[in-house]
Each structure stands twice: as structure tokens, then as C-alpha cells.
């Protein structure tokens, strides 16, 4: 079995491009060009140079000694939190802005939930001098004021999504509608491994620098390029896709995905799509999603704005359905506690999304000799208010 995308844009039975005809020319143009463009030596050179000099890659693979002692295993943190703009999201936006330029696009649109992907997109647009419009749910605009300010400072226009539930899924709908209305000059920089083919594959490839570096760095630390486990949180699934990428076909490396359970899987306020979702279509992709019996998409909940998406990327739906990856879910409380623990044991304040991945150590006992690589997808600066309110700091 393969865990990569096939020629038709499917991961097993998941994926495809379930899009209205109005989007077909845009998506088809991208589909026909993305692999060709990415294979060009000049593209590779420019991408790699920006990742190095602008993003600050390679990000360190850090052996977390005290955390390892507490959990009696060997824990390495892949420090995506040290990237410029504070998360893995910029790996993808650098790649896509270069793609957009190759395709002759002059206007960039994006969706954002917490604002991390919006900031990463606004950043690369400033870098390249391109117009940038970011759609953001009206409710998220109100609760993520610092990131809204950052995007504005970077020259982006932030447009409130007023439809539906006024959060991430609606911001994504608005971005797609914008693309329908502007089919020629605009590129849509989607923020995760979601959406119609070729987006999930393209974003996974741009994020795959994470696992490529893990292999090299682990070899230097441990004389092996293969960990026993790779752990990552999953919202749409881009940091996980990047961390898994070069290990996908090697089943001796076990993959663990941690979703957001919110107030608990059965609480009615959760974002644990693999447990609560069924196969269906969201944002142009056949995947697992949270929906009513009638196929209306429901609103998820998590304390982490980056994880409250009602679907997962089709790659993850396939990893779940095939059993290739183990899916766990961490509640708000488990994630917040794990985040606090990392701060106090290692001096690293993680993004609340990444804190969900860290909760794995309370859920699963690893062997003392296991090498467990955990993708620390982002830093906690953006979440300080949430930490303050939660712990009454």
C-alpha cells in the first residue's frame, strides 16, 4: 500500500477535486504545473535559500533531556517554533509564493483561523511585494487581535468572513469564493494539507523539509536516521504531513497523530475528526469530516484556534483508515497541562496546537530506548492570553 498521493489525486479512497466548474481552470493550471515547477533547479535553489536565510532553517532537532527523564524515553523536539513567524506554516507560504510568481499571479488570497497562516502569508507577500488579502472569521478577528495587527502591519488586507459560523471553515469558503471571482490573476495560498488536489500534495511537499531534516539530524545524534515514533498534532494536518513525509512508506517508523478533543470527545464540543467524522466532502476534498446525519458540516471546538477545523486532510484520512498512523485525542486540559510542563521542564513555551502533541506522553508509555521525535509546530507567544486566562497567571 502507498501512503502518498496517486496520479489521480487520491490517497486510498480520499482526496480528489470536488470543485465547482468555476474553479476548474485555476485548480487545473496548478495541477498541471506544480510538480514541473517544483522540480526546476532554480525553483529549488530559491526555495532552499529562503528557507535557510529568511526562515532560519534547518530548525534544530533538540534532545529534551529533562522531559525524557520524566517520561523514561528518548524525546527529540523538532523545533519548528524557532522558524521566522513562529510556526511551520511559513515553509508552505514560501513555497507557494514562489509557485504563484512562476505562474504569473499578482494577487494572493489566504484563509486563516488563529492568524498564524495569515501572518505567514502576509509575510511572504511583503517579501515579494504582492497584494495580499486574508479572509478571517469575524469571531476569530475579535479573539486574535495581535495577529490581525501583524497582518495589517505587513500590508495585508484582512477581510472578515461574515457567513455561516464566522470561523475558519467560513474564512476558507470566502477565500474560495474570492478565487471564483478572480480566476486569472489570483493565487490562493491554502494553509494546510486540505482542499482539492493538488493542494494536499503540494503543501505536504513544501512541509516535507521537516522530515528530511529530521533524518539527517537524527543520524548525527543517534547514528540512525529512523526514530521509533514520529508524533504531531493534526488540525488540517500540514505539520504532521511534513514530519511524517519521508517516513510514510517505512512502516517500521510508527506515526502518531494527536487531534484536539476540546472538552472531551463525547462533550459535543470537540475537534477530534477521526473519531467524530465520517467520509464526506469539505472544501473540494473527499475526506473525514464532522457533519450532521444530513451532511451539513458542523462547527468544531478546541481551545486551540489552529486545530478547530471540521475536517482533516485526505492523507490523514487515509493514514487513519488504513491504520498506518495511530490517532489519539487530547482535551483542552491535557494540552494546557502538557504545555505548562514543557515550559517548566525545558524552558520552551509551545503553541497550544503543539501542546496537544506533547500530551501524548501522558497517554502512551514508550520504551526507555525508543526514539520519539515530536514536531513542535509553533511557539506559544500568540497564545499567551489563553495561557494567562487558563492558569490565572
Amino acid at each position: 500500500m502507498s501512503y502518498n498521493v496517486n496520479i489521480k489525486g487520491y490517497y486510498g479512497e480520499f482526496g480528489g477535486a470536488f470543485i465547482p466548474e468555476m474553479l476548474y481552470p485555476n485548480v487545473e493550471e496548478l495541477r498541471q504545473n506544480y510538480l514541473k515547477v517544483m522540480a526546476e533547479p532554480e525553483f529549488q535553489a530559491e526555495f532552499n535559500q529562503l528557507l535557510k536565510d529568511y526562515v532560519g532553517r534547518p530548525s534544530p532537532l533538540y534532545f529534551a533531556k529533562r522531559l525524557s527523564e520524566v517520561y523514561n524515553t528518548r524525546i527529540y523536539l523538532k523545533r519548528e517554533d524557532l522558524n521566522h513567524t513562529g510556526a511551520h506554516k511559513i515553509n508552505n507560504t514560501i513555497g507557494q509564493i514562489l509557485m504563484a510568481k512562476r505562474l504569473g499571479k499578482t494577487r494572493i488570497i489566504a484563509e486563516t483561523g488563529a492568524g498564524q497562516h495569515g501572518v505567514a502569508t502576509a509575510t511572504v507577500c511583503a517579501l515579494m511585494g504582492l497584494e495580499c488579502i486574508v479572509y478571517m472569521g469575524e469571531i476569530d478577528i475579535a479573539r486574535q487581535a495581535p495577529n490581525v495587527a501583524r497582518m495589517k502591519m505587513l500590508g495585508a488586507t484582512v477581510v472578515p468572513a461574515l457567513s455561516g459560523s464566522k470561523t475558519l471553515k467560513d474564512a476558507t469558503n470566502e477565500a474560495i469564493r474570492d478565487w471564483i471571482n478572480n480566476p486569472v490573476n489570483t493565487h490562493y495560498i491554502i494553509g494546510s494539507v486540505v482542499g482539492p488536489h493538488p493542494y494536499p500534495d503540494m503543501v505536504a511537499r513544501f512541509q516535507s523539509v521537516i522530515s528530511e531534516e529530521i533524518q539527517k539530524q537524527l543520524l548525527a545524534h543517534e547514528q540512525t536516521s529512523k526514530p521509533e515514533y514520529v508524533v504531531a498534532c493534526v488540525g488540517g494536518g500540514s505539520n504532521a504531513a511534513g514530519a511524517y513525509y519521508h517516513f510514510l512508506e517505512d512502516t517500521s517508523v510508527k506515526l502518531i497523530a494527536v487531534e484536539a478533543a476540546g472538552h472531551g470527545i463525547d462533550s459535543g464540543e470537540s475537534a477530534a475528526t477521526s473519531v467524530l467524522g465520517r467520509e464526506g466532502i469539505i472544501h473540494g476534498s473527499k475526506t473525514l469530516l464532522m457533519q450532521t446525519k444530513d451532511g451539513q458540516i458542523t462547527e468544531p471546538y478546541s481551545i486551540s484556534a489552529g486545530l478547530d477545523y471540521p475536517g482533516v486532510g485526505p492523507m490523514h484520512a487515509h493514514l487513519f483508515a488504513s491504520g498506518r498512523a495511530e490517532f489519539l485525542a487530547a482535551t483542552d486540559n491535557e494540552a494546557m497541562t502538557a504545555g505548562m510542563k514543557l515550559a517548566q521542564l525545558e524552558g520552551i513555551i509551545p503553541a497550544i496546537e503543539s501542546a496537544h502533541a506533547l500530551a501524548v506522553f501522558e497517554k502512551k508509555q514508550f520504551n526507555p530506548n525508543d526514539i520519539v521525535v515530536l514536531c513542535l509546530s509553533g511557539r506559544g507567544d500568540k497564545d499567551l492570553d489563553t495561557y494567562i486566562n487558563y492558569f490565572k497567571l
Partner: protein
Amino acid sequence: MMNRIQTKLKEDKKLLSIYFTAGFPNLEDTASIINQLEQSGVDMIEIGLPFSDPLADGPTIQASSTQSLKNGMTTEVLFQQLKNIRETVLIPLLLMGYFNPILQYGVEAFCEKCQEVGIDGLIIPDLPVDVYVADYQKMFEAHGLLNVFLITPQTSEERIKFIDSISNGFIYMVSSSSVTGSQEGFGEEQTNYFKRIAKMQLHNAQIVGFGISNKQTFSQATAYTKGAIIGSAFIKHLTENREGTIKDFVKRILE
């Protein structure tokens, strides 16, 4: 047996088709709106099955979908409401909806229900052409359902020809590169596009949708095509005037 849509397309006139969202403004309005539209002289009706995330729709149809879902509309309720519709209504009826609710209902079960209540065609904007051909064409045809595909000003000539080859009713010509309801009248660009498609001499008739709101845009759209579809403007009318004056609305377009 000829499908009602195919029979209608043979009539020597420009066709007026109206889209409305089922269950809007009130849950139980569906059958009454259909009956009034037919009595007002409308040629064909597209009954919208509401979806929580209508990607191709502008604010008017989005809002009507949200309201309809709040009112309690579901696929099952809609089929209940349409159960006796063929006792009074003779014109072609199409269902228009996004693919996910149909997938959750079960595509085959959905087709059976459509046939049972007397639906003639389906418009599913996010069902891709290749998936339709591979998985659903036979099923739709076995239930007497015509599947209607969309084309836009950006659709390549080659793709239009392919879509024409797998259609057997009409092609839904989206008037401009936009979501529903966003146009204010047609300009030269649209006219050129209508002419360009007319010149292709397709097997299937073309019916224009998106941005048609009054007599003038209806005439412009049908100058080179078989008919036109009014959606957002009709929904706005329902919102502002309630249903008492559906006749007036249609009369203003057709007179």
C-alpha cells in the same frame, strides 16, 4: 420516453427558469412556491437543497440556505414536501444542491427518491465531470435524471465539447467568473462570450445563469441562448415581498 426537460427544450420560445432555496422563507413554502411559479408562466424550476457551506454562492443564496437549514430543512423533509407535487405541477423540476448531502443520503437512494417524486434533472456544482462519468452516469440515467453541467467564460473549448458530449438536456452557462448574485448587468464581455458559445453549435441547448435579475438582463442573456435562470433576484424578492407577489415578479420579466 422523453424527459420533461427535453420536451420543454423543443418549445419554440426563450425559457425562463427560476431557482429558489427549498424551505425558505418558511419551511413549508416549498410546494406553494413551485405551484405559484408554474401558474405564473415559468418554464422550469430549480429547487435548491440547502447546504451549510455553499462554495459557489454569493450572500443572498447563502443567507437563504442558512435560514432554510434553521427552519429544519433536510433531504428527507424535502422529498416529503415534493411527494404530491406531480399532482399539480407539469413543468420540468430540477434539484440543485452540493454533493455532500447527496452522498450522505446515499446517491442511489437519492436518485430513486428523485424519480419517485418526479424530478427530471440534477445540478450538482461540485460533482466533478470525471467522477460523474466513472461512478454515476449510468445510475442517473437509469432513474431518468438529466445531469446538468456548468461552463464558465474560462472553460476551454475542448472541455466544453467534452461536457456537451456527456450532456443530454442543456448546459448551464455561468454568465461571468463569479459566485451567484454578484453581477450588475451584462457588458460586452458577456455578449462576446454568449456569441462565442453560440457559434460552437453544441448539441445541447445553453441556458444562462448567474447575474440575471430583470427583463433587461433576461433579454440580453437569451439573445444568443435558449433561456436563462434567475436565482438571487427571486430570493431577494421573496425576502422583501414574501410570496404574495410571485406572479408580479414573473410578469415583470416576461411581459
